[in-house]
């Protein structure tokens, strides 16, 4: 790029000016474009392509059409992972949103020590998931772990929390709620601080109860924030698998596996990259669907542009 680009349109003819503009813009975009294409766009297309092929032992690729999709439809672990993803989302999202709202309302008040409260609620957000998993793994350890020690005090026997298909998902859900609620809190806090205090004062003057004011005024006004947080939470629920590597490896008997974790296992433990591509296509479709909803909705919001 040279300095002569700045020539004013008066000196040059408009057409060549536009041409120079475009050259400059594309040169500026070039480094980012190369990397985006190499690690986002090309991989997406390659994933789709590879889902229609299988790799022979001798390294040649064979077109198999929808075969991989058929075996996926017949794969109980795939369905298990999908259903688990659904329960994981349903278990974590509403509760962490409700808690986040409660936290934000408290922190927004002129309460004693609210700086400390905000700090306490938000801290889990900055911790690595892998460290969090280590700490919580110990809570759930049978007999020796903290949870069983507490239960022992009131006379209960030990329980293999993460080793039992009926409790493993709930244990992970509780941990993720702890990790995420404080993050969602800050969006509610920002929204609450933009609400006019007049509304609540007017409601108070009218003699409305706090609960009534919340239900009929505050909560509806926070609806855009709730939708926004919910959509982000859904996207997160598809990406969050770090803890599985440490805590359960998807077990027992696939009771805690999630789609991305299953993709990781198929690709890097079972070395079946063709099937992993097929599974990734499902994840891409799910994410795009959520994203379309998100952007369709965000487009109508003021802060977007």
């Amino acid at each position: 790029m040279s300095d002569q680009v700045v020539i004013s349109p008066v000196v040059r003819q408009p057409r060549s000016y536009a041409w120079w503009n475009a050259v400059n813009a594309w040169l500026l975009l070039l480094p980012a474009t190369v990397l985006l294409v190499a690690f986002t766009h090309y991989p997406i297309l390659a994933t789709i392509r590879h889902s229609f092929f299988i790799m022979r032992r001798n390294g040649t690729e064979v077109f198999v059409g929808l075969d991989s999709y058929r075996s996926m439809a017949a794969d109980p672990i795939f369905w298990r992972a999908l259903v688990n993803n659904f329960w994981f989302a349903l278990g974590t999202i509403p509760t962490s949103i409700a808690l986040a709202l409660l936290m934000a309302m408290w922190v927004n008040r002129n309460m004693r020590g609210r700086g400390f409260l905000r700090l306490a609620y938000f801290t889990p957000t900055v911790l690595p998931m892998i460290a969090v998993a280590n700490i919580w793994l110990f809570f759930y350890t049978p007999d020796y772990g903290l949870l069983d020690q507490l239960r022992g005090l009131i006379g209960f026997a030990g329980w293999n929390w993460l080793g039992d298909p009926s409790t493993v998902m709930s244990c992970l859900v509780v941990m993720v709620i702890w990790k995420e609620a404080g993050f969602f809190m800050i969006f509610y806090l920002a929204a609450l601080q933009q609400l006019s205090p007049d509304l609540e004062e007017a409601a108070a003057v009218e003699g409305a109860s706090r609960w009534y004011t919340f239900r009929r005024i505050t909560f509806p006004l926070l609806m855009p924030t709730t939708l926004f947080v919910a959509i982000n939470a859904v996207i997160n629920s598809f990406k969050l698998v770090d803890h599985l590597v440490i805590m359960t490896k998807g077990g027992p008997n696939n009771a805690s596996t999630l789609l991305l974790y299953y993709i990781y296992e198929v690709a890097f433990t079972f070395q079946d990259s063709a099937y992993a591509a097929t599974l990734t296509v499902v994840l891409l479709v799910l994410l795009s669907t959520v994203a379309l909803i998100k952007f369709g909705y965000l487009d109508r919001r003021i802060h977007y542009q």
Partner: protein
Amino acid sequence: MNGRTHPLEVIAAWLLALLWLAPLAYAFWSALHPAAFATSFSLSAPWTLENFARAWNQAPFGRYYFNTVVLVVLILIGQLVLSTLAAYAFARFKFKGSGIAFALVLLQLMIMPDVLIVENYRMIGTLGLLDTIPAIALPYLASAFGIFLLRQTFKSVPQELVEAARVEGAGPLEILWRVYVPLARPTYVAFGLVSVSYHWNNFLWPLIVTNSVEARPLTVGLAVFGAPETGVDWSIITAATVMTMAPLLFAFLLFQRQFVQSFMRAGIR
């Protein structure tokens, strides 16, 4: 609303806060006491740094720290440079196809490199970079989020300032450097904090592309160290866990407000 907080609510808020801090407090307790006191909380329990010393000696945590710092710095610098150039193109140049190009950039906000692990692994393999620190960084260097955030900031730069610089004879890159970049400082700080925390904590992709001590970041090192088959003492694992999260936690305690605001801007994109 100030006068109307019920005392019970204050108590509930504090209880929740203590409950929220408990797992972290517990990690510190266990890391700073002998293994015998891992689950018995007694005021007379002796304090010790022994667990840290043993964790540090049993695994190359010094190297892991070094790798993570190199990784985080590499990613941050790459992201800042590439996002600045790209955002400048989108914010101030009118050219054919800019709309489509921008939409293609935004695609990365929805489909992050985190989920394209299979093909990205293949790509890194083709490039011959497996098990290196640049391999961990490469998929993240072009950040749609950074481009988006900076484009918004750049668009709000007053045109008069740009004109003034132009009259003085500044070229496009000079204008970018002298006018746009200084005015976008708060955005750079916000983006930087989010990027550093994200990549300090990132785990799955580094786990996949690295398999040696020389390339492994802290998170992966911790996972390898704490794996049940290694049979390492619980107290030592928590010491390692505390070591992994300590720098970020410390930075957060120091710059709490900036962290919260940055995470908020990162979320509302």
